[in-house]
C-alpha cells in the first residue's frame, strides 16, 4: 500500500495539472527508484481513460555511456526522438535518484555535447507546448538521495515534499485551483511592468520585461509549484547578481555564483566552487549566457533550500533566473541547449522595484501592488 499522499499526488497531477482526457497518450518518465509514484501515475492515467507509457531510467547507465562515448556517439540524435515528441499529448517527468552525484565526475563537455545534439527535440517540445498541443508536468519522488542532499531523514523529506504540494490539505485540488486564480491575477499585474530591478546583498540587476508575457505557474507544469515567470528581453539585462543558494545541475554543485550582465549577456561569471564548470556551461552555445527566464517564487509552504531546483525556485520570497533557453510562450526568443535556474533569496532585506516603484520587499509582495494572500492552505 502506497502512502495515501502519493496516491493523491498522482490524482492531482493527472486530474488538475494535466487535465488528462480519453485517449491522450502520456509518456511518464522517471527512475526505477521512483517506482511507487510511477505505479500510482499509471493507475491515475488509466482511470482518466488516457494511455500511459512508462519510460524507466536506471542510475549508472548514463554515466557508463557518457564516459565512453565518442563525439560521434554524443552528437547522434536517435531517429525516433523527434518522432516521439510529435506523438505524445502529455509528458510527466518524475525526478528522483539513487545518487545525485552520479554524473559528478563526468566531463561536462560530454554532457554539453549530448545536450546540444538533443536541442532540436527540446525546441520542438517547447514549440508544441507553446501551441498548447503538448501538456507536461515535472514532479519529484521523495527518495533517499534527495533527502540526504537536504540533510533530512527520508521520513522528514517525504513530509517536506508532500507539504510543499499541499497534499495534507483537506482538498488539494481546490487549494491549487484557488491559488491558480490568485496567481493568474498576479501574472496580469506583472504584465504591465516594463523594467524590473532586483536589489539585495551584492545584487543590483535590471531586467527588461516590457511586452513579455508573465505566466502563472500554478501547479500545471511543475508539481508542486508556485512561481510567476517570464522571458526577459534578451538584450536588456544589466548589472550584477549573486545567487545565495548553490546551483546544482548535471550532478554538480556550483556555489555562490556571481554574474555580471551587460546588454543582456553575461560578461563575467565567478563561483566559489565549480567555476570551471560554470564557464563551460555558459560557453555551451550562443544563448547560454543570456537569460531565458526571470521568476519570483510564491510557494510559501516551501521554506528551506534542498538543492532540488524544482523546490528551491518555488520558495516563497525568492527570485530566480535561468541562463539559456527561454519559453517561447513568454515571448522569449532565446534558444540554447542549456536551461539553468539559479535562485536568489530576497527574504531578508531584498527588494524588487517595478519601473522605479517597490513592489516586493523582504520576500512578500507589497499590498500596494498585490493585496491577495498567497499563503498555502492550512494542513
Amino acid at each position, binding site marked *: 500500500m502506497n502512502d495515501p499522499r502519493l496516491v493523491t499526488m498522482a490524482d492531482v497531477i493527472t486530474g488538475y495539472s494535466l487535465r488528462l482526457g480519453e*485517449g491522450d*497518450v502520456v*509518456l511518464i518518465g522517471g527512475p*526505477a527508484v521512483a*517506482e511507487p509514484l*510511477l*505505479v500510482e501515475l*499509471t*493507475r491515475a492515467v*488509466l*482511470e482518466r*481513460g488516457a*494511455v*500511459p*507509457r*512508462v*519510460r*524507466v*531510467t*536506471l*542510475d*549508472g*547507465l548514463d554515466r*557508463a*555511456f557518457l564516459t*565512453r*562515448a*565518442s563525439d*560521434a*556517439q554524443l552528437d*547522434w540524435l*536517435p*531517429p*525516433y526522438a523527434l*518522432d*516521439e515528441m*510529435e*506523438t*505524445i499529448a502529455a509528458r510527466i517527468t518524475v525526478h528522483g535518484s539513487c545518487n545525485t552525484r552520479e554524473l559528478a565526475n563526468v566531463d561536462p563537455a560530454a554532457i554539453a555535447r549530448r545536450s546540444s545534439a538533443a536541442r532540436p527535440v527540446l525546441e520542438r517540445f517547447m514549440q508544441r507546448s507553446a501551441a498548447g498541443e503538448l501538456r507536461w508536468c515535472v514532479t519529484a519522488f521523495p527518495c533517499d538521495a534527495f533527502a540526504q542532499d537536504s540533510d533530512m531523514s527520508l521520513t522528514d523529506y517525504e513530509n517536506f515534499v508532500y507539504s510543499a504540494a499541499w497534499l495534507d490539505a483537506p482538498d488539494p485540488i481546490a487549494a491549487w485551483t484557488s491559488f491558480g486564480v490568485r496567481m493568474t491575477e498576479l501574472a496580469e499585474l506583472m504584465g504591465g511592468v516594463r523594467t524590473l530591478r532586483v536589489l539585495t546583498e551584492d545584487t543590483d540587476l535590471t531586467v527588461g520585461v516590457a511586452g513579455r508575457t508573465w505566466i502563472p505557474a500554478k501547479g500545471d507544469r511543475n508539481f508542486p509549484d508556485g512561481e510567476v515567470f517570464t522571458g526577459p528581453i534578451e538584450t536588456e539585462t544589466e548589472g550584477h547578481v549573486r545567487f545565495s543558494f548553490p546551483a546544482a545541475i548535471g550532478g554538480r554543485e556550483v556555489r555562490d555564483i556571481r554574474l555580471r550582465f551587460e546588454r543582456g549577456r553575461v560578461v563575467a561569471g565567478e563561483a566559489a566552487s565549480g567555476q570551471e564548470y560554470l564557464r563551460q556551461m555558459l560557453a555551451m552555445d550562443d544563448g547560454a549566457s543570456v537569460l531565458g527566464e526571470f521568476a519570483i517564487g510564491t510557494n510559501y509552504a516551501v521554506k528551506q533550500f534542498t538543492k532540488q531546483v524544482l523546490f528551491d525556485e518555488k520558495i516563497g520570497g525568492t527570485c530566480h533566473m535561468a541562463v539559456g533557453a527561454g519559453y517561447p510562450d513568454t515571448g522569449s526568443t532565446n534558444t540554447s541547449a542549456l536551461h539553468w535556474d539559479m535562485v536568489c533569496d530576497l527574504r531578508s532585506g531584498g527588494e524588487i522595484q517595478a519601473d522605479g516603484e517597490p513592489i516586493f520587499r523582504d520576500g512578500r509582495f507589497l499590498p500596494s501592488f498585490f493585496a491577495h494572500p498567497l499563503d498555502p492552505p492550512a494542513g
Partner: protein
Amino acid sequence: MFGAVPDLRLTKLAEVLCRYSLEVSEGDLVLVEGPALAQPLMLELVKTITDLGAHPMVRPSLESVEAMMMTRSSLAQLDTVTRLDEIEVEMPTRMLSIWANRNTRYLSGAPDQNLARRSAATRPLFERAIEREAAGETRWCGTAYPCHAAAQDAGMSLAEWEDFVFAAGHLLDADPIAFWRKQSRHQAAIAERLSKLTELRIVAENTDLTVNVGGRSWLNADGRQNFPDGEIYTSPLHTETRGTIGFSFDAAFNGRDVCGVRLWFEDGRVVREEAERGVEYLRQMLDQDEGARYLGEVAFGLNDEIQSATRDTLFDEKIGGTCHVALGMAFPEAGGTNRSGLHWDMVCDLRSAGDVYGDGELIFSRGRFL
C-alpha cells in the same frame, strides 16, 4: 579492492551477446529491454555497446507498472498501439530481451482475457519485428539474467542459480565465443544428418511417438537468438504424428504449474490428454484453436552443461540428452505449416532409458547421438 565490483561473468555475458549473438557493429541502434532488476547486466551492455561504436537504447520495465496496466486497462486502452510502441520494433537494428523476474507470478492478478487482448493488439508489432528480422534489417536475441524469482522456481539459492546460468552459457570458459562457435559446428553436423531422415521414432518411459520430418529443415540454435542455447529443432509434418509421449519435468507455463502431462496422437492430432496436475488449464490451452492440438516443433537439447530441470523452458528444453516437442505454432523457416496462438514446449528426458530411431535405425540412445 573493496566494495561492489561487477560480476565478471556479467561482463563476459555482455561481450558474448554483443560480439557473438547480435554481432553489434558501429552505428547500430541496440534496443535492450528487460526488468529494472537486470540493471547490472544492462550496465555491462551499455559499456560494450558504446565501446563498439553503437547506440544503446535501454528500456527497463517494472513488473508493478505492467501489472497495473494489465489489471486496470479498459478494452480500449488494451487495444491501443501508440507510435511509441511502433518505434521500438521499427527503429532498432539490434534487439535484446533480458528475461528475469522479481516474481514470476506477477501477473497472476490480471484477468486472462486482458492478457490475451493485449497480446492480440500487439501482434502486428510482433509480426513487424519478425518481418524485419527476416529481411535482415534487425537481429533479435533473448537472454536469461539470473534472479531470485527464477532461482526460487528452480529450487536453488541465487548463488547456485547464477553458477548454473553462467555455466550453461559457458561464460566460465576462457573463451566463451570460441566455445559457441565450436558448439555451432557440432550442432550443424547433427542437423545435417537429421535432415536426411523422414521418420523419427522416440521410445522412452510412457513414450512411443512417431513424427514425420521428411523434407523439413533442422535449424541450429547456437546462442544467436537465445542465450544460453544449445538445441536443434524443426517443425514436423503436423498431420502425421502418431503414438504417445509422456513429459518428464514439471513445467510452469504462463505462471501456471502443469505436471505429469501425457498426450496421445492420431493423424497428428492430440486425441487424449492427461496431467497429474493442471489438466484443466492444459485442456483450455489445447482447445484455444485448431492448431493447438498439433505439433509445431520437435527438437533435441544439446547443452551438456544443463543437467537438471529448472521449471524454466529456456533451460529445460536445452538439457543435453532430452528431446522436446511443442504444441501449436510451427516455424515457417523450418517448413512448418501448423498455425496457432499457442507454442508450448514440453520436454521428454531420454538420458536414462531413451532411444530414437531414424527411418527404423537406432540413431540416439541414452541421451547421445550414436
